[in-house]
């Protein structure tokens, strides 16, 4: 019974495909999975938009949306309907074809990442050996779409936003990759299914998630930072920067294309949260061994939604960074420490078991954190400003 509940979606798909001739089962199975992904994640997006508006409201001692439906739950539906009925304006000088394609590219690239992420036991669209590589190559396409949007709009704000976005995404792509590399080094596989399985062991009741190792924790923190920057979330929301750039690269988008950008942003967030959960939080595995009876997909989706809640919390807390702060942080702190973390992961692998690897790895990382934080991120002190009269 419990096994059935765990595999309920897999069994449902098998039952559904049973009605088809054998030749059609393979393509139809893929189609069913794709439809499921396209249905589930926009729903989760709607929920996270609601959570975000409610949560941010509460953090600012407001109520948040409470008019549409009970507790304002239908607010995302109302927003969607509103954007559907709005006029779709394309600027006269815009490059119409690229302007049209940009939101589509963003959305497609954002959805493609889910193809390789295991969302439960046996619940993965494509069992790809190089799944992680595929994910990152798809993630790189979002940069292209952002620049397409900014360039084709022929608007100074759009272009500035796109420039910022590309600079930021390229800078943070490096630590994002380097923080994932350590997982590949330890688990010995690029396949996300294998990475989850490698974490699905328990010592006593505690799981062997990578976040519970020194290098894993460091990589996880770097991953969160890089992921917030990659998804243009606050405090790294410079590309949108509504107080400076109207709406950044999607300034010239209206109606449903704007909604597509909005959707793409949240889908990207969900996708990167799913990847983070897969790499460091054990994917669909239970947090304690005695909770193994709960269906695996529940764990996966609750981990994703918890990560979303953390992103929301972060957004409610942090002011936007300045461009130079953003770049300094990426190149002077995050990149060196993630490079060091690769070494630490190698040391962990070759120091053998026991307390020695824990002490050595923790010490190196802690020293690097304090040292780099002190040396690299020190605020420049210019002293009091003095006015000098012209002579």
């Amino acid at each position, binding site marked *: 019974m419990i096994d059935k509940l765990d595999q309920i979606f897999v069994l449902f798909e098998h039952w559904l495909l049973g009605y088809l001739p054998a030749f059609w089962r393979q393509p139809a199975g893929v189609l069913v999975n794709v439809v499921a992904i396209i249905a589930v994640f926009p729903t989760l997006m709607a929920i996270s938009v609601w959570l975000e508006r409610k*949560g941010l409201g*509460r*953090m*600012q*001692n*407001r*109520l948040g949306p409470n008019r549409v439906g009970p507790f304002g739950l239908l607010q995302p539906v109302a927003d969607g309907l509103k954007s559907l009925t709005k006029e779709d304006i394309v600027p006269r000088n815009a490059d119409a074809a690229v302007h049209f394609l940009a939101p589509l590219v963003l959305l497609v690239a954002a959805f493609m990442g889910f193809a390789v992420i295991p969302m439960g036991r046996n619940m993965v669209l494509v069992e790809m050996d190089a799944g992680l590589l595929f994910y990152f190559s798809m993630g790189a396409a979002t940069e292209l779409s952002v620049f397409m949007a900014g360039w084709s709009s022929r608007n100074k704000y759009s272009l500035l936003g796109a420039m910022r976005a590309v600079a930021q995404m390229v800078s943070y792509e490096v630590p994002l990759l380097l923080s994932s590399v350590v997982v590949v080094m330890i688990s010995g596989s690029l396949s996300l299914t294998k990475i989850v399985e490698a974490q699905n062991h328990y010592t006593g009741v505690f799981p062997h998630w990578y976040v519970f190792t020194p290098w894993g924790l460091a990589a996880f923190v770097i991953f969160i930072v890089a992921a917030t920057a990659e998804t243009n979330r606050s405090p790294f929301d410079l590309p949108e920067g509504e107080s400076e750039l109207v709406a950044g690269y999607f300034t010239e988008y209206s109606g449903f294309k704007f909604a597509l950008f909005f959707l793409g942003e949240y889908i990207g967030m969900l996708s990167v949260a799913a990847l983070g959960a897969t790499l460091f939080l054990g994917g669909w595995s239970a947090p304690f061994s005695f909770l193994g009876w709960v269906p695996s997909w529940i764990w996966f989706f609750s981990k994703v939604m918890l990560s979303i809640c953390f992103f929301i*919390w*972060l957004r*409610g*807390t*942090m002011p936007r960074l300045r461009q130079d702060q953003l770049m300094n942080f990426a190149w002077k*702190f995050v990149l060196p420490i993630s490079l060091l973390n690769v070494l630490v992961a190698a040391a962990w692998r070759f120091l053998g078991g026991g307390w020695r690897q824990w002490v050595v790895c923790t010490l190196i990382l802690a020293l690097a*954190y*304090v040292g*780099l*934080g*002190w040396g690299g*991120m020190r605020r420049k002190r210019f002293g009091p400003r003095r006015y000098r009269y012209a002579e």
Partner: protein
Amino acid sequence: MLGEGLLKGLAVTAKNFAASYVSAERLTTVQYPEERIAPIEATRDFPFLVYDGEDWEAGLRCVACQICEKECPPKCIYIEKSKDKKPDFVGKMQIYPARFDIDISVCMSCQICVEVCPFEAIKMDTEFELSTTDRFGGLLHDRRALAKSNGHYRKIHPTEAGEVDARRAGEKAKAEAKAKLDAEAAAAKAAAAAKTAEPPAGAGD
């Protein structure tokens, strides 16, 4: 150490988030159409014309001097003077506005018209629910829409209205005293004239 500030910030937002569910007095939101808070006394949005007494048309304090029309920075006031005259509160004959329009879509609520008015005739209202489906006609308020009683003024700005009323009462008293003096003087003069006029009349007799 790096990240300390972030942790402190996260603690603050977490505290606000949790406490907003526990203590209702934290929430500053007013559920507007159902709940309302009374406007503070200094609230102002758009001007209105004050009238005394019951009849709005007869009681309008405005004498169509057009100072406000000239001073209005966005030029949202339009006044047409009347051809005839009517008595004001001290009984002096004054012209009155045959037309007085304010386009509140243009008005910027600067209160300059109120400051320049020598007759205490135009004051700032607190009414803000002025949305309309007719964006041209509906936002162009004519004399009838603008005229509001002195009672209304006393209700929305009690302190200010009290001062205005006292000043006007003083002016009226002064005017009445003057009228009385004038009347007495006129009577005395008339009497004196009658006295001086009498002898010749008698002489002429």
